């Protein structure tokens, strides 16, 4: 049996390309299980590079994110559903957001900003954009390179986990996101990271 869902996620992960094998909106449990196993491996490889103690992989969160990105990609290419059906296809995350969940969903959701950009090129008014941006707002670690209103973002979980906080700052520095760097939750850590070498590494002006 061909697991097209797994193939799509692998392709996305390894080549950073979306490849779909037809308009297949249903996903079996078996397929989800295989994707979960694949993502766990990917997570453990990445976690070697995480500072401090990396949290344990969160299967359910990662699988939810994989489904979300897969279905969003399906909707990008084949749109046969009505707008009102969209919330039924792209389901909201219902469990508690934890540092483990944030890092696990990031494996897939980090591709969401690029996908939203594609959607915007096709139709600015698409209500799918709104749904996906709402998701990014909850999982804003994956959307550091996506224009967002910093006021809406909740940094409570991120601030309290040293591993996640450092990873978040790394990402802000990498994307040179001035606005986020000046956010009160991050500014001290970013300043400490750049230290005396601010001019050499990133010549940012702090508020």
């Amino acid at each position, binding site marked *: 049996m061909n697991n097209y869902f797994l193939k799509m996620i692998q392709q996305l992960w390894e080549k950073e390309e979306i490849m779909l094998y037809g308009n297949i909106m249903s996903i079996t449990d078996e397929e989800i299980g295989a994707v979960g196993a694949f993502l766990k491996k990917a997570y453990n490889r990445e976690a*070697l*590079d*995480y*500072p*401090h103690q990396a949290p344990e992989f969160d299967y359910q969160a990662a699988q939810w994110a994989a489904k979300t990105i897969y279905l969003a990609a399906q909707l990008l290419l084949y749109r046969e559903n009505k707008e009102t059906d969209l919330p039924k296809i792209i389901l909201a995350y219902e469990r508690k957001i934890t540092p483990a969940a944030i890092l696990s969903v990031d494996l897939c959701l980090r591709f969401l900003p690029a996908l939203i950009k594609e959607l915007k090129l096709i139709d600015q008014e698409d209500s799918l954009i709104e749904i996906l941006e709402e998701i990014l707002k909850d999982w804003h670690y994956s959307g550091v390179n996506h224009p967002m209103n910093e006021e809406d973002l909740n940094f409570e979980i991120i601030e309290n986990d*040293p591993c996640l906080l*450092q990873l978040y*700052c*790394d990402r802000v*520095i*990498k994307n040179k996101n001035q606005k986020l760097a000046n956010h009160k939750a991050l500014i001290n850590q970013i300043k400490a*990271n*750049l*230290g*005396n*070498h601010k001019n*050499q*590494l*990133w010549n940012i002006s702090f508020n």
Partner: protein
Amino acid sequence: MAKDVTNDLNYCLSLARTQEADLATIRHWNNLKIAFDGDLIWIKDLTLIQINSVTVKSIPFIKRYEVRGPKLFPFQGRLPEGNLPALLWSPMERGLSIELPKFNFNYFGTEEKIKIELIPSEKVKNASAMIVSMKELEEYILAAPEIRLQNIQWAIIDQTQAILFGQPLLPIPGKVFWQIEDFLIPAGYTFRHEGLIKKVNKKINPVSNNLITWEEDNQYFKINKIAIQALSISSFRMSILH
């Protein structure tokens, strides 16, 4: 009106030819002229300061004269002794040739050795490497921001020490080095014979595949360039696990 000869007072001295070598101390005064007259050497155009200087006075068996017009007076004397002889004057350097020691082709100097050693340097260079203890590196690196590690490469020296390369270096205590060619030498030092380091490098590092860490006590160890890897949290974790 008669010419005031004191305006062009000028001094000269004479010396026996056999004492020629004693003139070495004033040979570098390039305003002087020299001439040879039989057994005598004449030197003219000395200034008052020069004729009075210890350098001149300390030359044995010289006679000092004052030249007033064509007449020659003994220095500080009143009665002329004669005229300045008409001679062929030439500049000192040309008149007094230097005899260079002959090269001894039979001498091979096999006993002589130059010690390659470090001396404090006045030139300031950017530090490009540091040796740190594994323990301190671990403490920093497991919480390190990615941006600080991006520019750093590293190699493990032994169980307790590692060497880091790059700029800016990490904010941990360690011994800092700078680089000359393939040599890493402690910051603040340079080689006493810097011109020789290419030769030394060729000798101990013929294909230039190593970096040579040279310490103040003139001991060195080599680091294979292939062993130098990009530093990341994962590269560190994988290295200490193995």
